[in-house]
Structure formats: structure tokens, C-alpha cells
């Protein structure tokens, strides 16, 4: 029996008031040739108690990250979200509201999003932020198309953008899908021997529309060359930097070393990894890109009596006004998750952010030292500093190491060959976060050592 329909049992009364006699009358406009002739072949309705029981039964087959030592990250991170974040964000007034098109009754969400814009702007040190896009990859892709719209007319290398080597396949694929329609050609920025952008090679990108790089890079290396990049690529080329958001309590904000657009994954602020969504993409930029940027923006304004108020603004960029000439097709975005991020950021404050960055970096450093002390394991990029993650070279395939570790109850990381074209099969990407403990690290090290032992046994 379905229980969320207030007018069940009162259908006839309502139909009669309209001069109809059956529900079928209301569907008489659907021509016979397209009318369904059999009922839906689905199971019957369930009560809330049955749904909850079934959800628990099915979901108990999952293994959450926090239930065991976890070293898988690569763009989404195991974290701890303070309890008050979801408690506040899921208040019905926020949770069940639509896009704040009626500002007079939406001041709460509008103000929270304006505060979010300010916090992101401060975090990356650029003047403008929107209220989120879908994720880090669509943020990067939209940044590239935005930059082409702004720079193409004057660009020496028209319709050409460069992106960092070794981007994960899933990110590159999103970028390719978003740029194919605009006829944008994507070229690769090479790395030097330390895993940093090759500044000599980068001269080739001079005069193109945009370059996209990441800090830290996809293998976790903090790239010391990036602050020199803007000068090399030139004033009329957008420097787009993808960031690991939590690193910015420790690593200088890209807006302070030449970035024109900063994008990234907001997830560690506000929500768990949630199997990949909902999460939210950060998009911040210089004023030069404001009128070509995607997504919604909140502005402070006044009401008819001159009182402070907030409203959505610059809507003429958007699809509901500009239709096929819009800067992006984005409509639904990730507002509620951005709100969660905003609450989490407010609660951390500047020094809480710094500490969170330090915890992440410390876990990474401790894990890296412990793993590198194992004989037979080498760093892919020795002599570099890492944040959150680093990549090691194993004597045999990373997949076999991971399945061995998994059998010991340790999620050991990511075999890069699974997500990155041309990655070697023995490259293992390891992530440690603020949630990593010394006990977790010991289990990883013990596991890797005993896996290496099994290799010796086989070869012996």
C-alpha cells in the first residue's frame, strides 16, 4: 500500500468536481497507438520498514573505506566530516528547496552560497567563484572551453589547449567529450625527470588558448615549476590549475602564483567520497573570465527599501535565458554539497584548514617513509615532495600486490595501469589522509613485505 499520496481514496470526489468520472478520462489525450497495454512489470510497493531493512541488507555487502586500512584516494579522499555539517545542511528548508529563483524567500541559501563563493575565493586567491559545478573533471573541462571563448580571437595557436601529461583517463575523457563540439585540439604538456612540468617544452604552449596543470600532480608530486609557467605561456593564455583543495592550507594559493582559473574537487570539505557522487567541483577565476564562466553566481544587492539582500546574478550567461548560446548547459549543479563544504570550511577556520593540510601531508610523509624503507620498493619520483599521495615502483604487478593486500583486509591503493594510459603495470599509487593511523601504515608495510616474500618463494 502506497503511503505518500494524500488524495488516495478521494479521487472520485475530485474527478466529480471537474465533471469527470474516472482517472482514465484524464489520460484520454494519449493516443491509443502509444498507450501502454500492460501494467508495469515490477514488484509491489514496500513500506518504509521494508525499504530500510532491504537497504541495510544490500548495502552491508559493501566495504567502506573507514572499515579497514585504506590507501585508495587519487582524487577522492577518505575524510571525517564533523557531525554538524550534515545536520545543518539537511534541514528541510535547505534540503527541499529549489534553485533560489525567488530571492525574497531564499535569502538563507543565497547568503550561504555567497559566503561559499567568498571562502573559495580566499582559498585559491582569485576574486570570483561560482556556486559549484559537478566535479573536478567537468570543472577542468568547462574551464578549458571558457578559456577558449575568452582567448581564441587573439590567440596565436587558435583552438589549441595543452593539458598535463599523465592525467587519469577518466579526466581526459571528460575533457575530450566537453571540447569535441567546439573543435578544440588537446595537446600534451610533457613532464621533466622529476615529475614536474617541463618548462622548456612548455614554450611550445606559448600563445595557445589555455594550459591545464595540477598541483599536486596526478601522482602526488608537488610541482615546483608551476609558478614559472604563466610567464612562459604568456598573458593571452589562461593558466588553469587543478588543485587538491585540502592542500591549500600548506601550499601557496595558485591565484598568488599566476593562475587565471582554479578548479578542483571540493569533496574533502563537506562530504564522504560517496562512491563518486554527489561531490562538487570548484570553479574560481579572474574577472576576465567572469562573463564566460559556467554555472550560477550569487551577488549581493538591495531590496526595494534599500536593505541588503542576495540574488542570483549574471543569468544572461545561462541556458534558461541564452539557450544555445549559453556558456554552458549546466542547470542542476551540486548546491547542497557546496553548502556542506561551506559549513565545514566555516567550522575549520583558517587554522583548522592549516592543521587539516598538515595532517594530510604528515600522513603522506609517514606512509611514504615507511613504504620506501621496504627493500625492493622504489619511488617513481624520488627527491620530490608529495601531498596526500605518491607513486611507487614494485618488482611485480600492482594488481597482484593489491589483491594480496585486499585478502589481508588492507585496501592498498590504485594500480595506475587501470586508470592511466601508458602507466606501467608495476606502478602503485598510494594515498594517505588525515584519517590514516600508524596502525594502518604498519599493516600496509607488513602486507607489502609479506607479498614480496611470496614473490621470492615463487621465484625460488
Amino acid at each position, binding site marked *: 500500500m502506497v503511503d505518500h499520496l494524500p488524495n488516495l481514496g478521494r479521487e472520485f470526489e475530485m474527478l466529480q468536481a471537474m465533471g469527470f468520472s474516472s482517472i482514465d478520462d484524464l489520460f484520454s489525450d494519449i493516443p491509443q497507438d502509444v498507450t501502454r497495454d500492460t501494467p508495469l512489470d515490477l514488484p509491489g510497493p514496500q513500506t518504509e520498514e521494508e525499504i530500510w531493512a532491504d537497504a541495510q541488507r544490500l548495502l552491508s555487502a559493501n566495504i567502506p573505506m573507514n572499515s579497514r586500512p585504506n590507501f585508495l584516494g587519487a582524487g577522492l579522499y577518505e575524510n571525517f566530516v564533523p557531525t554538524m555539517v550534515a545536520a*545543518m545542511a539537511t534541514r528541510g528548508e535547505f534540503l*527541499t528547496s529549489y534553485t533560489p529563483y525567488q530571492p525574497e524567500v531564499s535569502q538563507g541559501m543565497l547568503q550561504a552560497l555567497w559566503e561559499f563563493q567568498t571562502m573559495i575565493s580566499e582559498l585559491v586567491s582569485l576574486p570570483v567563484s561560482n556556486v559549484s559545478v559537478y566535479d573536478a573533471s567537468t570543472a577542468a573541462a568547462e574551464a578549458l572551453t571558457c578559456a577558449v571563448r575568452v582567448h581564441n580571437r587573439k590567440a596565436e595557436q587558435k583552438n589549441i589547449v595543452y593539458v598535463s601529461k599523465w592525467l587519469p583517463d577518466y579526466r581526459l575523457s571528460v575533457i575530450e567529450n566537453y571540447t569535441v563540439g567546439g573543435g578544440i585540439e588537446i595537446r600534451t604538456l610533457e613532464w621533466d625527470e622529476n615529475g614536474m612540468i617541463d618548462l622548456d617544452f612548455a614554450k611550445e604552449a606559448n600563445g595557445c588558448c589555455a594550459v591545464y596543470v595540477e598541483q599536486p600532480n596526478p601522482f602526488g608530486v608537488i610541482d615546483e615549476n608551476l609558478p614559472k609557467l604563466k610567464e612562459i605561456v604568456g598573458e593571452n593564455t589562461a593558466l588553469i590549475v587543478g588543485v587538491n583543495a585540502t592542500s591549500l592550507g600548506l601550499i*601557496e594559493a595558485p591565484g598568488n602564483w599566476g593562475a587565471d582559473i582554479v578548479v578542483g574537487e571540493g569533496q574533502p570539505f563537506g562530504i564522504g567520497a560517496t562512491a563518486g557522487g554527489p561531490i562538487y567541483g570548484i570553479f574560481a577565476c579572474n574577472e576576465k573570465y567572469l562573463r564566460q564562466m559556467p554555472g550560477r553566481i550569487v551577488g549581493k544587492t538591495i531590496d526595494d527599501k534599500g536593505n541588503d539582500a542576495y540574488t542570483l546574478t549574471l543569468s544572461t550567461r545561462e541556458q534558461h535565458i541564452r539557450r544555445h548560446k549559453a556558456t554552458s548547459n549546466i542547470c542542476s549543479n551540486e548546491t547542497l554539497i557546496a553548502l556542506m563544504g561551506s559549513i565545514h570550511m566555516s567550522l575549520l577556520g*583558517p587554522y583548522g*584548514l592549516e592543521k587539516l593540510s598538515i595532517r594530510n601531508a604528515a600522513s603522506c610523509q609517514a606512509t611514504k617513509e615507511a613504504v620506501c624503507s621496504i627493500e625492493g620498493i622504489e619511488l617513481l619520483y624520488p627527491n620530490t615532495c608529495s601531498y596526500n599521495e605518491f607513486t611507487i615502483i614494485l618488482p611485480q604487478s600492482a594488481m597482484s600486490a593489491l589483491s594480496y593486500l585486499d585478502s589481508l583486509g588492507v585496501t592498498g591503493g590504485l594500480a595506475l595501469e587501470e586508470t592511466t594510459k601508458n602507466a606501467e603495470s608495476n606502478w602503485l599509487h598510494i594515498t594517505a589522509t588525515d584519517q590514516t593511523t600508524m596502525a594502518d601504515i604498519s599493516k600496509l608495510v607488513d602486507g607489502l613485505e609479506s607479498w614480496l616474500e611470496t614473490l621470492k618463494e615463487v621465484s625460488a
Partner: protein
Amino acid sequence: MSDVFAFNGDLSAGYAQPEPLISGDEVFNAIPSSLRRVNLPRWPRASEPELVRHYTWLSRRNFGIDNGFYPLGSCTMKHNPRVNEKIVQLSEVNDLHPLAPESHLQGLMAIFYEMQEMLAHCSGMDEVTLQPVAGAQGEFAAIRCIQEFHKKNGESGRNKVIVPDSAHGTNPASAAMCGYEIIEIPSNDEGRLDLDALKSVVGQDTAAMMVTNPSTLGVFEPEIAKASEIVHAAGGQMYYDGANFNAILGKTSPGLMGFDAVHYNLHKTFSQPHGGGGPGSGPIGVKSHLAEFLPKPLVDRKEDSNGIDGWKYFWRDPENSIGKVQQWHGNAGAVVRSWAFYRRYGRELEKMSEHAVLNANYLRHKILNPSNDLAAKIPAMPIDGAPTKVVKHEFTLSMSPVKDKTGVTGKDVAKRLLDYGYMAPTLYFPMIVPECLMIEPTETESKEVLDKFADDFLKILSEDSDLVMTAPHNTDVGRVDEVWAARNLVLRHPLDN
């Protein structure tokens, strides 16, 4: 009024965290000196008790379905069951990594599989992906699939996408992002698809046509099957914008109407909360000839006695996949909520649509047929946006007669409704209806609420025009100056102090 940056407490204010695994100094010194952050972001310095007050205060200055009737046309603002929130807050949803081994995600994948199958069944499609995270992203992904389909058939010359002038703005925007030229065709005098107009533009350069049915006017397109025939005969594909799917579940399906691809808005039909603008979820379904192009991966399963109910789930990449539109597996949390919503109805999803349509027709009838007493006090009545005997899940009103007689615009009435404790209807859309209000009550409103809303709506039409034209009067702020906002562009806090 206060903002969060007014909290300016001690440096130690805020959330206390455990100590790092190695000392902060050691970590800091390891960062290359040229890249160490000099000035921290000027975030608030506040404690939890202060922030709980702040966000509670903000929430009270916001209006959701929980606060009152939300007749926002095309947005399907139905009740959001709370058990759905409880489920997604479990670690077994919230703390999963999308790149974890399949063996860590079996429960989630079982739910994904069930949703893929259910959506395919309800829409008459063959294969479904849950990856797109919004309706617009679903449109984009599906049009990309259609683009690759034509390319594979050696028909890359098909460079035009046809949309009716009543289409959602995302339709042309999504097709344009794929590089298509947009051909907009006018609706006929009754706001319906005009087959002659369609025939005059369709041809060898047609890649696809994008249609919403019922249309944004809330009326069912009676000639939809013929439109599909015309487009197919020219070699084009038919795309169904599922924004209005709530109207037709169990009654008809995009498959029966001749569509090749469809997106579903889980945040409309399946009650993923709108959250102030997102997250959404926009899965797409396609007929078998497009299935090889779907975004990767999909969930599949094989028999395995150790699996859940005898099934082991695995990721499967379609053969000629367009790749990724979102970097992971879509908004999994939204899919889980929508699964819980679907389970509440099961095969009775048809009843959901019946009640959505019942409520829309009932409210339209009540508004357009005022009692004699009330009618005598109303200087001018709105008229139907499109002439029709019955509507589907929503209807449009043109306020033009009201504006002509009294000067009161659709926007004025919308703003006055806020004073009565309602969300305003969708305003000035579709653009083909002058002074349009678009009203969608959904199935979760009671007859009493609809009666009261109709009374209040009609009462507003009888009110002094000055009162209405200066509305709202009872809200947190008065009518907001959007022009001032666009001219001055105060897009962040200056943090001067």
C-alpha cells in the same frame, strides 16, 4: 544582517582535530619554500555553537517543500521521504570509493543494476547508464552517443538538431555543446508540435530532434508518433527530455512514442531532493542501436552462488563508449535515494503519475472556475496557456488579460503568492505563452492545499493592484533589485576589516 565572516574569534576557534602523525614543523619544512602558503584564507573563526545558530538562522530564511506548497512548474517539487536521507548517510554509501574493487561495492552495484533495469522498463528503452549527474548532462551524453552513431554510419554530415520553441533551455544548450547547429521550430497556434514546420526543416542534415512530452505546456503531444516517423524517415534520431516523465509512468513510454534515447531526472520523478539547485541525477536510456556508445561503465551481473541473492555484479564497458561525462559513476547517493523512493511505489508508480495528473487538473479547474462571488470581484481572469480538455502533470496560465486590464504582471502575482506562504510558480516559461505562470502541484499535495491555493490565487487577482505590484510585503526582504546586482557585481565579501 549578519554574515559568517562576522565571527572573528580566537585563532584557536573552530573544530578541534587530532594531532598529525609527524610534527607540523617537519611537514612544513618539507614543502618547497617557494610554495609554502604565506597568508591563510580569511575564513571565519567560529565555534560549533555559534555556527549552528548561524546556519539555523539562514535555514529559516529559506523556503523548501517542507515549508509549504511549491507549485514550481517543470521542477516536480514533490515530498522527499526522510528514510532516503537516513540510507545515504550510512558509511556503506557515504564512505565508498568509486575505484574500490568490485568486491567492495556489491551492494551498491546491486542497487545500480535494479535502477538500470527499472528505468529501462518504465521508459521502453533497452539499456540505461546512471552516470550523468544532471538532466542537462544526460542530454549532453545522449546527444554525444547519437553523434557517434551517425559518425559510425558515415553520416557525420548530419549537423543539425531540431528543438521546438517550447523546449527547455538545456536542450539547445546541450546540443550546441556537442557542436550542433540548432534549428528551432515554432509551435502551432495551440502550442503543440507543428508537423508541417517539422517537415519543412527535417532532412539529410538532421542529426536528432529533442522533444519533451508532455510538453512544457503540460499537454500531451497527440502527434508525437508521427513526428518520430518523420524524423526517422529522414535518418534522424529522436531524443526524449524526461523532465516531465512524472506525468506518464505506466501510461505510455518514450519507447512507445518512437524515441531512441531519453534522460530521466531522478531529482524530479524519483524525489532526489533538489537541495537548493542540486545535486541532481540524469541517467539516460537508449534503444539497442545506441547502446554501444553509452558512457562507461555500466553495471552487469552474472550468476554466482556466493553473490547477493545469487548474483555477482561487475562493471562492463560498452564497446564503442563515448567515455566519461562525469569522472566516476555518477551521483551514486542520488541513485540510492531514488531507489528507496522507487521501492515505496514499485509497480504502483502508475498511481504516482495518476495522482500528479489528478492534482494538476483539479487545481487548474479550481483556478479557472471561480465561484460567482469571487468572480464578481476579479477584474480580469488569466487564460489557459494552451487550449486543452485535460492537462498532464502541470499547466500554464497566461496573465496577459490581467496585465492588460490592471497592469498587474505575472511576476507581480508570483511575488504576491510569496506573501501567502507559497513558492511562486515558474515564471515566464515557456516563452511562447505571454505573461506565463507554469504550475505543477505534484502528487504529494492534498486536496485541502489545492483548494486553499486556488482560493488565495483568485483572491490575489481581486486585490488592489498597487498592493500586488509592490509585493512581497511579508517576506524576509522586499522585492529584490536584480538590476542593481548585475550592475554592481558584489560577488564576495570584501573582508575589509
